[in-house]
């Protein structure tokens, strides 16, 4: 095994770039972008290198170890398994695309890239941390820059609200980007308070004076502890994953955020939550997970259907995409709740697929909004005439989201449904399938209203297809969607090995009858 610290390189390249950006007193837009994009490219290359170099057979590879506070068992302990690789790849692809998608940013671009890169460092960190504490630390880093990214560079939707809650809307400035930013931040950090409590409970109960995920994973926790720590972690991480009813930060946040931030947030950050539920909650607390799986699954089902229905009602393009994220993250959580190999493979795969798809969606929405300065679907129409390429990419993203075979979304959703059918409650699969149909309904409806029809309205005369660097994000993401849709085994084999390893561990610690009793 190569001793080169690939993972550190991946994680800290964006951070180094952020510091470099802070240090160089450049006013040059191009220099700023080159520095930022170079660092994301470094991470991308590193991720590819890790993905290719990962040996089959599972387990954590590319290990690195640096002490932080050894006396209480906190170390910077890095390593990846099949899950980590998939999400590492996803993150590096999305941020690479996102860096290009923000190319046209005009105001305060240096600060923007600094914050964006800091955030990315946090995301990478979560996926490769083998220390629960460091995991949490990176998790928080990934959440916080969002406040400023949305607050400063976001866009505002003016809502003229009527009805009995009018005063509340005015008082809280609902619809404003500051409102969205603070709501997102506070809700996510409230979630992280529960995560913290859960982590401390596990550390204390294991009694190993170590935060190492492996050490803690080997410990067995009393059932009573698992019964409350798991829901705490589920709520905590689940808030970020958009679990109903704590998903409402997502539509406002994603709608207000600038393009690259929406891409990264819906594309990757929501996955942090789901990844946390699975990697920390379910793998490490199998009994708690088995006992609560039916709740997780039922809520996930609500997410899927409810999110899709809510998306159908929206008229704001970004809200449609945001609610579709709520719905699709439900698929991830559904896969997780099944506690089956297919379900978990599908959940991880759905994270990748949804990340790519929603990243593409937000990139496109950004392009459209950048030219129209309007997100109201009702005002659009016939855009395919002036932006045919955007229409094509939008259609591809739509198809992936509704589960068209040949695109990544199908591979993921189908596996999740398989898992659900074989999981504790087969009817979950029905709801999932229904959700896929509802997705087809709202997403194609939106596509038709935006792109089809006779020519754009008069006020949108200057629309055009993407130019120059704007293509990069679209092409990269679409290519990945197709690639992972056609040849899933590129990553599925590694995911599968890891999943099976985890589930074996679970079945050893939690006897099958524990999960058999789930079905009420």
């Amino acid at each position, binding site marked *: *095994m190569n001793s080169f610290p690939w993972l550190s390189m991946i994680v800290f390249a964006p951070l180094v770039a952020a510091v470099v950006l802070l240090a160089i007193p450049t006013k040059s837009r191009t220099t700023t972008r080159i520095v930022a994009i170079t660092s994301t490219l470094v991470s991308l290359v590193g991720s590819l290198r890790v993905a290719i170099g990962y*040996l*089959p*057979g*599972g*387990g*954590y*590879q590319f*290990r690195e170890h640096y002490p932080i506070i050894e006396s209480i068992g906190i170390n910077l302990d890095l390593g990846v398994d099949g899950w980590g690789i998939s999400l590492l790849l996803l993150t590096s692809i999305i941020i690479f695309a996102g860096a290009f998608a923000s190319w046209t940013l005009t105001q305060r671009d240096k600060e923007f890239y600094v914050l964006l890169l800091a955030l990315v460092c946090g995301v990478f960190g979560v996926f490769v941390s083998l220390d629960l504490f460091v995991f949490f630390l990176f998790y928080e880093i990934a959440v916080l820059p969002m406040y400023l990214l949305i607050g400063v560079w976001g866009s505002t939707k003016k809502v003229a609200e009527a009805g009995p*809650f009018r005063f*509340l809307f005015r*008082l*809280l400035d609902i619809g404003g980007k500051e409102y969205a930013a603070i*709501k997102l931040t506070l809700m996510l950090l409230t979630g992280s308070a529960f995560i913290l409590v859960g982590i401390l409970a596990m550390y204390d109960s294991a009694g190993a004076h170590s935060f190492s995920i492996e050490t803690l994973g080997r410990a067995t926790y009393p059932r009573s502890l698992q019964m409350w720590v798991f829901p705490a972690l589920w709520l905590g991480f689940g808030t970020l994953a958009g679990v*109903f*009813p704590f998903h*409402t930060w997502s539509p406002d946040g994603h709608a207000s955020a600038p393009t690259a931030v929406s891409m990264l947030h819906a594309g990757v950050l929501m996955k942090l939550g789901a990844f946390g539920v699975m990697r920390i909650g379910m793998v490490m607390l199998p009994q708690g997970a088995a006992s609560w799986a039916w709740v997780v699954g039922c809520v996930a089902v609500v997410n899927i259907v*409810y999110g899709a*229905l*809510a998306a*159908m*009602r*929206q008229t704001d393009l970004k809200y449609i995409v945001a609610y579709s994220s709520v719905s699709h993250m439900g698929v991830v959580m559904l896969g997780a709740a099944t506690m089956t*190999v*297919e379900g978990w*493979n599908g959940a991880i795969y759905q994270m990748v697929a949804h990340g790519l798809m929603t990243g593409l969606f937000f990139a496109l929405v950004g392009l459209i909004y950048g030219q129209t300065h309007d997100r109201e679907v009702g005002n659009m129409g016939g855009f*395919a*005439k002036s932006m045919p390429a955007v229409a094509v990419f939008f259609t591809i993203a739509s198809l992936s989201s509704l*589960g*068209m*075979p*040949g695109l990544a979304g*199908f591979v993921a959703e*189908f*596996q999740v*449904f*398989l898992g*659900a*059918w*074989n999981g504790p409650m087969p009817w979950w*699969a029905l709801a999932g*399938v*229904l959700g*896929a*149909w509802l997705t087809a309904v709202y997403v*194609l409806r939106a596509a*038709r209203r935006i*792109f*089809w*029809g*006779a020519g754009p309205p008069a006020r949108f005369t200057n629309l055009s297809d993407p130019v120059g660097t704007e293509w990069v994000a679209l092409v990269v993401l679409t290519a990945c969607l197709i690639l992972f849709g056609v*040849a*899933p*085994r*590129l990553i*599925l*084999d590694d995911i*599968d*090995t890891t999943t*099976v390893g985890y589930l074996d561990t679970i079945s050893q610690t939690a006897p099958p009858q524990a999960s058999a009793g789930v079905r009420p």
Partner: protein
Amino acid sequence: MTSTTSSADASPPPIFPLHADHLVLNLALIALLLPLACFVLLALVWPLRRAGRLAGWLSATVAVISFGASARLLMLVVGGEAPLTETVGWLVRDGKVIASMGVHIDGISASMLAVVTLVAACVQVYSLGYMAEDSLPAQGRYFTYHSLFITAMGGLVLAPNLLQLFAGWELVGLCSYLLIGFYWAKPSAGQAAVKAFWVTKFADMGLIVGLLALYGATGTFAWDAHLVGIWATAVPALLFMGVMGKSAQVPLHIWLPDAMEGPTPVSALLHAATMVAAGVYLIVRAYPLFELAPSLLLAMTWIGASTALIAAATAIVQDDIKKVLAYSTCSQLGYMIAALGSGQIMGGYFHLTTHAFFKSLLFLGAGAAIHAVHSNDIHDMGGLWKTTRISALLFITGSLALVGVPIFAGFFSKDLILEEMLEAGQYVPVAMLVLGAGLTAFYMTRVIVIAYFGDAAEGAEHAHEAPWTMLLPMGALGLLAVGAGFGGDLLATLWGQQYHFGMTPIGITTSVIGLGGIALGIMRYGTSTWTADLLGGLRGFILSGPVDRFWDSAWRQGLLPFAQVVGWFDRYIVDGLINMVAWLFIFLADRIKRFQTGRAQDYVFAVVLGVVAFIAYGMVGA
């Protein structure tokens, strides 16, 4: 560091196992992958695509080669090549492949592939002429979609398991969506495309769940799995739900007439010959599963027969030539489904192939007429016989095949169906089908009489005969429409069954009723003006689209308002509660400010209060 395993496992499996010396496999792969390559090329190399004509010729050439390969393949299979399955793993579970992709070549798939590629090749060549008036980029786009369709349909046909079949199924649905909406600037085209997708996708929910249940019961997606208990009925029933959508069975047929918004060759290929027949193909393919569900088969018979009758009745009142043909397609698909439901897979499949030829011919003929007069309305075509004699002749040939006039293709297959069903004792459905046959004859006669021999319409007088690119494929299909009926033996060989044709009472009855329908049509429309309509009230009822109205109100008064309610709930209740929490804190913080009075003595008072509380605690607690 975890242990490293041998690197032998590390190499990913080859994407496709090409065998240099395996002709059957290579032919199948050529038929499948050449169009794919063409699609990728056209999709990525936009100058080529936007060049239009070149793209068209390339695509058509590829389609023809693809057909050549399929035909050779069919011959090899007829010649006794053993069935062959070649797959690569696609999805894994616990290190083992649970779903694979590849090709499965046997008599059924080889013959279906030949039919598909043949019609596709004809339609593409035809399109070179038909689409010539569209803009060049639009033509490029058109042929790109077509290349994708051949691949998708080929993948469906050659599927070694139901999962790949489903993948192809969805992809042809995608092509259908794209091609129906080909004229995207037209609002009606957009609505039709979306409607087609929604309805078929709605039905596909059943198909997906069927696959899930199949996997749940057997751990595979094989169509010959052995199911027991409730799943023996439930799985094929769920699969059949998908079939009802794709093959436009009542009440899920509503998308097919709307799908005529697409260019006419598209209707010929997708919405008549191949894609809509995919449902029938699925049942044929998965018949081992369906066999085990007799109650389902009975239901299929009835659904098929009802569709055949209802759609035929609806076709009578249509003025749009394509809509007539669309309902006719529904109706004929009903025949196939009814046949399959009665256990007559051979008959159903036979009808599928003959129908593919004569119905695509009819559409292409209709396309030629539309091309000539730039209208879909049969009344605008009056008197076309005079100006476009060749295509008129071909259209009439197709009609005769459809009606089931003896020696034409449709006669043999329809006769086989009815005969076998009668043997199976399905009297009422047979009666419905026979009646449907009469209606078929009537509406086709109506179209021919009005469009080709009726009062001369303005546009029709200046019409020109179609170019050779259009006539050539029509001619080829015309030959098949006449002669394909004699292919029954060939088909039977492929199936390993006996087939011999004989004139039976039911065949004679049907033929007589068909001829009666023709006569009635000629009498009705050949002599008097069309406005004085015998059908009167029925006509109004049919045109108002009762099934459509049902689905429309389900959408407008069911789903949409429900989504509104959910959206409201989300914004005001779920989000409202969270906002309420925020507001409560702000409110509280604002109110408690007054306790910080700014008066020093109050501060001291707080200190004293604290001390008193301490003392009280000390006295009580200690």
